């Protein structure tokens, strides 16, 4: 399926992050995820492929809304970080096993 079409038909909200996802950026990210959840969007794909650092505050924001999305029958899934410094926090906390991760946005949208 065409990835743009997939976001439509499956009503998947996409969020693309860049650079850092730390305590500072976690706040606006929470605003975005909160907005989508409130609008009833329970399928959210967050693209971390261009993020080069994630800390536990960034992770916490992703986990919170992953739980909210799952409780609504949806999910928050990730396009995996390519940078080892961004992947590390997932490995250390074993959240790489909890989140469904895709290799690319296109893969996430078409294989969801």
């Amino acid at each position, binding site marked *: 399926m065409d990835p743009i079409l997939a976001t439509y038909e499956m009503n998947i909200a996409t969020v693309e992050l860049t650079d*850092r996802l*730390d*305590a*500072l950026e976690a706040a606006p990210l929470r605003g975005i995820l909160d907005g989508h959840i409130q609008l009833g969007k329970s399928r959210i794909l967050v693209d971390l492929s261009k993020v080069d*650092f994630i*800390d*536990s*505050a960034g*992770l*916490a924001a992703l*986990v*919170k809304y*992953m*739980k909210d999305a799952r409780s609504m029958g949806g999910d928050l899934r990730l396009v995996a970080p390519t940078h*080892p*410094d961004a992947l*590390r*926090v997932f490995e*250390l*906390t*074993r*959240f790489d096993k*909890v989140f469904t991760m895709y290799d690319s946005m296109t893969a996430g949208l078409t294989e969801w």
Partner: protein
Amino acid sequence: MNDILRVTADFEAIRAVGPWLRSVLEPLGPEQCAAMAGSIELAVHEMATNSIDHGKSTSIELKAQRTNDAVDIILTDDGLPFEGRQGPAPHPDEPQVRGYGLMIVEALTESIDYERIATGNRWTMRFALESNESNSST
């Protein structure tokens, strides 16, 4: 290697930790530096975040010290005393939303030492050198 970084305790200012660490680790040679910088940054960043979030500190000082087979990073702040972890420790297979900071730091450090001092708190984090071969310089 005996550098000091002093930053105001806010989330913007502590972004200086990464670049500072990379310059401090440079004498270890490019491989050692590349291998260690990312995990040291994450650990130090988590400790600095806790110092801001929980310790309500206003100023944070970082000092790097080379020992024979390790690098010590000493974080000194002017925050409230650390009285142990409040709230549940995370269990790896039960996702919870907070409480992963210290777990991450413990996983990344060889040892971590806490001391309450007159002016605040001092944390000493020890990071093992990845391999002895690449210790090209002192």
